[in-house]
């Protein structure tokens, strides 16, 4: 699925306005599976959190202990119905949704990770080079993004360093963290794998980190949507559906 990208001085190189293959089929499938899973798991997760909207550090924590975050009083509802699945209070139903879609999320994640590593896709598209890691390069990209000046023409074929950090962060930090902290909350798995709950410093810590990782995904989602809208939503959504991406043109270059 991956495109061979010719060197920069090649005359056959695509220019602004050309259509290029942007997203592999596996990436597109994984992307839309994640849209479904993360939306359902976020909304059912907020319902689960409604059952006890307090977060603690360590192994134990209940209303008698000190919480580091109190989202609502125990008798109040932290997250309103429009944010939760189901919209009326049901911890049992929210758990059904959450735990069923967890399988889809984990299987899709594992499948994509294996595919991406074996096929070299992750190395080609997400690997951050030494030049890109330089603070000067990163600061330059941040400054360009802040001015809403995005790469055009051939420079838009590959992900820039901020995109790589964002996508790599989801793939290698947020999703593994949210999956492992989810597993660490299971009393049965804690008996089998005590190291798992120790990794996060206790079950209540795991629950807190699960929530923080979910917050990280929400933050990613918001920035992602804003960037898609700013970069041209039709072209971006089309590329994630069909794989074909129209390279943005330079403002000064009407070619």
């Amino acid at each position: 699925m991956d495109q061979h990208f010719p060197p920069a001085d090649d005359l056959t190189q695509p220019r602004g306005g050309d259509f290029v293959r942007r997203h592999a089929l596996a990436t597109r499938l994984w992307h839309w599976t994640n849209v479904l899973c993360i939306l359902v798991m976020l909304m059912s997760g907020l319902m689960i959190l409604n059952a006890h909207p307090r977060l603690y550090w360590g192994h134990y924590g209940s209303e008698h202990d000190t919480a580091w975050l109190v989202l609502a009083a125990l008798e109040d509802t932290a997250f309103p119905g429009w944010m939760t699945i189901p919209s009326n209070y049901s911890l049992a139903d929210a758990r059904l949704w959450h735990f069923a879609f967890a399988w889809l999320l984990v299987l899709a994640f594992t499948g994509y990770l294996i595919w991406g590593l074996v096929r070299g896709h992750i190395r080609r598209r997400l690997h951050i080079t030494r030049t890109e890691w330089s603070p000067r390069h990163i600061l330059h990209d941040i400054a360009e993004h802040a001015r809403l000046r995005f790469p055009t023409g051939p420079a838009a074929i590959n992900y820039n360093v901020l995109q790589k950090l964002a996508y790599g962060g989801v793939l290698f930090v947020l999703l593994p963290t949210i999956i492992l902290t989810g597993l660490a909350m299971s009393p049965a798995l804690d008996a089998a794998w005590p190291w798992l709950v120790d990794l996060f410093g206790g079950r209540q810590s795991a629950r807190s980190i699960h929530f923080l990782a979910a917050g990280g995904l929400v933050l990613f989602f918001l920035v992602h949507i804003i960037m898609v809208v700013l970069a041209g939503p039709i072209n971006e959504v089309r590329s994630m559906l069909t794989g074909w991406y129209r390279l943005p043109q330079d403002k000064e270059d009407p070619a």
Partner: protein
Amino acid sequence: MILTRRKALQVGAAGAGGLLLSGCDALNDSAPFKDGLADVGRLHELTQRAIIGDSLAREFTEADMSPVFKANGSLRVPDPAYRALLSGGFAQWALRVDGLVHHPLALPLTALQAMQQRIQITRHDCVEGWSAIGKWQGPQLGAILSQAGLMPGARYVVFHCADKLEGKPFYESIDLVEAFHPQTILAWRMNDAPLTEPHGAPIRLRVERQLGYKQAKYIMRIELRESLAGLYGGRGGFWEDNRGYQWWAGI
């Protein structure tokens, strides 16, 4: 009317959001869909059973214990027969063990206290999300079941309790794997004192690899059964029957 791109996006987003929410609620009200979710959820039971084997739940030290162990579910049992037993220090109480057993038992508290005791400091995880660490003491459930002698058909251990919720008798059930697990005890002592009423006096179940709603309190009778069908709602417990919680409470 000219539909600008921005307007179209706004309308689209609002419409998609509304559709998503009402769609999810419609699915949530559909019995086949919810059964499907539960079926996928049962994969957790299958994989967890395969993974956990006979592993033991973490046991903590006294320094790790919660300063206050939260009591949940029924906190008081209004039933006059129970109140009479409570005021008599449960001297007149005996745990009945019956159903598919060779020797039905009636074990007074003194008999349970005279059996070999197990003391464990473990973490209690409520389905709501909170946890508390407490110290429990009592005989192993497996020893009591061995004393009663299980008939070949026995597959489930049902705990009939003195309390009622929403006017319905409370009960819970586990299978023989969890029943014979070494940390599964009938606790009559908690944090070095006899079990109090909010925590389930005279005895409560400790089944340490499961969530809090399985830890039945105020146990009056233990019944060995071949199937959970035909008992109350047929799902193996009050919360399972009345709230739709899963019988497997390992997650």
